[in-house]
């Protein structure tokens, strides 16, 4: 795919940020999804949740002002906004599993056309497995958005008829945001809602192992400035 026909990571984060309603309770997965917080703008009040017992998580502290105990799920130093609260792990996961989060944004290795998510293991037996809170978030948040590249670095498709990697959860993904398109998971598989301007439907299908269908009103995604 030509580079000008791809969104940057920041573009995708910006697109996802538009999906976050004012006042929402949100958990951003480790890695790429954390970029979404930086793209929200000041007009929206969003309450970020962290699995280690934080609501109202704020941005990274100024250098030198880090508190080693006050970290996010990725163990990076964070701050707490006015109105934030601390609670214990079991309550943090009660919130996640119990449907109290309005949405989560997760990374993915693979997503299937029935909404199965694989984002914790590749089946590589030479590394110890590690799951963290991925399964709890995937089953529990009211809306599960996936933010990922459309293909692997090696060009392999990530949107598949069925996942080949171990599942995180079955049938949970609502929508996928990639560097090429925005796709809903529907009863009839992936439905393309938005795609990068200039990209053809054949291009997109060619980068996707699952069969795509297209909305009547597919809108264009326009890449922003290069990073």
């Amino acid at each position, binding site marked *: 795919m030509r580079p000008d026909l791809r969104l940057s990571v920041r573009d995708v984060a910006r697109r996802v940020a538009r999906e976050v309603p004012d*006042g929402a309770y949100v958990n951003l997965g480790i890695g790429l999804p954390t970029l979404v917080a930086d793209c929200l703008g000041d007009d929206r009040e969003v309450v970020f949740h962290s699995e280690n017992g934080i609501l109202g998580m704020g941005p990274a502290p100024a250098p030198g002002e880090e508190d080693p105990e006050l970290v996010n799920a990725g163990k990076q130093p964070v701050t707490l906004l006015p109105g934030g609260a601390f609670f214990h792990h079991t309550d943090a996961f009660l919130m996640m599993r119990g449907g109290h989060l309005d949405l989560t944004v997760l990374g993915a290795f693979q997503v299937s056309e029935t909404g199965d998510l694989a984002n914790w293991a590749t089946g590589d037996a030479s590394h110890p497995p590690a799951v963290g809170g991925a399964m709890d978030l995937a089953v529990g948040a009211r809306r599960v958005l996936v933010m990922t590249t459309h293909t692997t670095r090696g060009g392999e498709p990530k949107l598949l008829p069925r996942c080949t990697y171990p599942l995180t959860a079955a049938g949970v993904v609502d929508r996928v945001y990639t560097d090429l398109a925005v796709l809903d998971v529907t009863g009839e598989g992936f439905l393309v809602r938005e795609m990068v301007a200039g990209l053809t439907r054949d291009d997109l299908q060619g980068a996707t192992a699952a069969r795509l269908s297209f909305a009547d009103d597919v809108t264009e995604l326009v890449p922003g400035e290069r990073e």
Partner: protein
Amino acid sequence: MIDKRVATVADAVEGIEDGATVLVGGFGASGVPVQLVHALLDRGSTDLTVVTNNAGSGETDVAALLRERRVRKIVCSYPRSAGSVWFEERWRAGEVELELVPQGTLSERMRAAAAGLGGFFTPTGADTRLAEGKEVRVIDGRRHVFEEPLRGDVALVKAARADRWGNLVYRTAARNFGPTMVAAAALSVVEVDEFVELGELDPETIVTPGIFVDRVVRVGAA
């Protein structure tokens, strides 16, 4: 901007439908959201399933709902007290159904709903008539009863102070069922004595984070 404060108790109970399952906080007279229950009465909501530890006393709150025949079913652990005349009257007449649940199981079932769990095994009630018809499993040599989550359409709860995000602190033993009930209902409504500015509640000491709360209304100190 997030602002869960509403102006009146009528606003606070807006949209509660007939037939709703309503979780009502309180233990005896401690921590009962009296103003919200009366607002629900004024709203005219009926055919309610009320989940609450006791069944009201005298002429106020849950007793008033029973007197006015708004309650189809009550789920509680201890409906009998010196002043529970309206419950006894309606129960004897067969006008209200009673589901009796051991108190710990009552709160644990609501917590299971809050926590997104499908149910749990508890030793409480095993070999008693309150386990009749329920699945029994021997775990670690002990008989356990399977209990299902108990979810509310609405929770009505009393707390001491709230901010605009709906963070709550309670006062002494008035806390009782409040934190569990607000987490177990689709719509959680809280009456408080006082509103405070965002950031005024110490994040270490917030008992109920606002994520569980939809509306807060100030009713003044009792």
